[in-house]
């Protein structure tokens, strides 16, 4: 139904979308996830030309909407959008919000439009609010009205731009249940959302957008359970990471400590965890000390919010050797301490790098 090829969009000097090519078929429910500012909303807004693409082509049911001769408003009537900030028409009652489009654009009679709108309001559970005005409704109610308003135009596809992002948690579920219902009824939808569980439940395709392209796409199982690409994984597990490079034996212990402390503060880690981390790093560096003039060491901290695990990876160049090998150590004091603060220590040689992966004991 929608065929997008090489879509690009720049705002001034900022290139938000680089090269997006994708096809959306009838009946599909697509979730679009990704970090903020990566162009998810822009992508959605380009589909109905709310934002004008800088390049590429978009064909909807065969109609090239970028062609100046196409009747874009007409195409839009079959495609509707639900916004993060609801955007209900303030001067009209709920009923009038719903009937405005059908009466003025589709030529329906007042009676028919009202009847249909009433049915839709019942569907979203807001029949008794038909005569209310938008400023009398809660956020969740407003969004449900917005969805009903979209439905009133009998669209072939509905675009959702972060429909629940502006709602407080108590109202999110009422809106999500409406969207679920729509999906069940077979409506084609493209949803930009941060609600991972919901996206997983309701969609049959997930796009992970990053770096201005559709970085990775697949079924919910593929993306959520088994992300292939690095950034996808990071995003899915909501991993926060920190990297420090040691290039000489004259590294500044305290400077590094300061950075590590900042990282810990950002992730709101317990004091104990922080102490143990600093200890671990210091002990490791003591062990590495004699070798630092001949190899490069990268220390990567990765904290998975989801799993609440702090992983510390020491990656170093040089010949394939596990420097924690008991046989190589001058004394085992350092190693004992290291073993005391970690859950597991794993050595691997990958490519031309040695990798020691440790998981810190939780506080």
């Amino acid at each position, binding site marked *: 139904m929608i065929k997008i090829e090489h879509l690009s969009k720049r705002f001034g000097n900022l290139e938000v979308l680089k090269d997006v090519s994708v096809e959306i078929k009838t009946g599909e429910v697509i979730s679009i996830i990704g970090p903020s500012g990566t162009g998810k909303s822009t992508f959605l807004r380009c589909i109905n030309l709310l934002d004008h693409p800088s390049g590429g082509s978009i064909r909807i049911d065969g109609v090239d909407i970028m062609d100046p001769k196409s009747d874009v408003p007409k195409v839009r009537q079959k495609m509707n959008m639900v916004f993060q900030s609801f955007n209900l028409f303030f001067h009209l009652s709920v009923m009038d919000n719903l009937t405005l489009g059908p009466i003025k654009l589709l030529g329906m009679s007042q009676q028919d439009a009202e009847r249909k709108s009433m049915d839709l309001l019942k569907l979203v559970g807001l029949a008794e609010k038909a005569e209310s005005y938008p400023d009398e409704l809660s956020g969740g109610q407003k969004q449900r009205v917005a969805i009903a308003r979209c439905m009133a135009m009998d669209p072939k596809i509905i675009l959702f731009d972060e429909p629940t992002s502006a709602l407080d948690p108590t109202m999110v579920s009422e809106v999500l249940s409406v969207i679920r219902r729509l999906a069940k009824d077979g409506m084609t939808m493209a949803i930009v959302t941060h609600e991972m569980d919901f996206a997983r439940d309701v969609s049959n395709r997930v796009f992970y957008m990053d770096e201005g392209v559709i970085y990775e796409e697949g079924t919910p199982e593929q993306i959520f359970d088994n992300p292939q690409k690095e950034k996808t994984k990071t995003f899915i597990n909501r991993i926060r990471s920190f990297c420090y490079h040691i290039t000489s034996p004259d590294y500044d212990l305290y400077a590094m400590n300061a950075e590590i402390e900042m990282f810990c503060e950002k992730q709101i880690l317990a004091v104990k965890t922080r102490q143990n981390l600093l200890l671990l790093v210091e*002990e490791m560096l003591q062990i590495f000390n004699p070798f630092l003039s001949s190899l490069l060491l990268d220390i990567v901290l990765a904290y998975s919010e989801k799993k609440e695990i702090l992983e510390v990876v020491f990656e170093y160049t040089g010949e394939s050797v596990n420097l924690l090998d008991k046989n190589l150590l001058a004394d085992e004091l350092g190693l004992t301490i290291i073993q005391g603060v970690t859950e597991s220590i794993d050595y691997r040689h990958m490519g031309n790098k040695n990798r020691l992966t440790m998981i810190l004991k939780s506080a």
Partner: protein
Amino acid sequence: MRNVALTRLSHFIKFLTITYMTIEIKKESAALVVKVAGRLDAVTAPEYEKKVNELIADGEINFVVDFEQLEYISSAGLRALLATAKRIKGKSGKILLANIKGGVKEVFDISGFGTIFPMHDSVASALSASV
């Protein structure tokens, strides 16, 4: 930008490291009380060792090390402690540790050092034990 700020921060901390470990000496009748405050790590341990060696050279042989205000100790600190203890034993002196608690205690436990030294709950108790 961030690196610049951090470098500045580290310089500031370096400035502080001059006071990142402090040693207070108090002469008691039974022994010399050495109060170590701050961190005993790879950077500060050498200083500690140097100071204690000086005291030993001055003729002190009975030491009580007060860990009340020590926040952090690593293997480097433990090694320094061990080295000075060996020296003291060599002069037929005694070294007792007091007020080891919290994270520092845990490190002692993990590393097994908890059993090497006599540990006391207070300076007073250590002093009476050193007589």
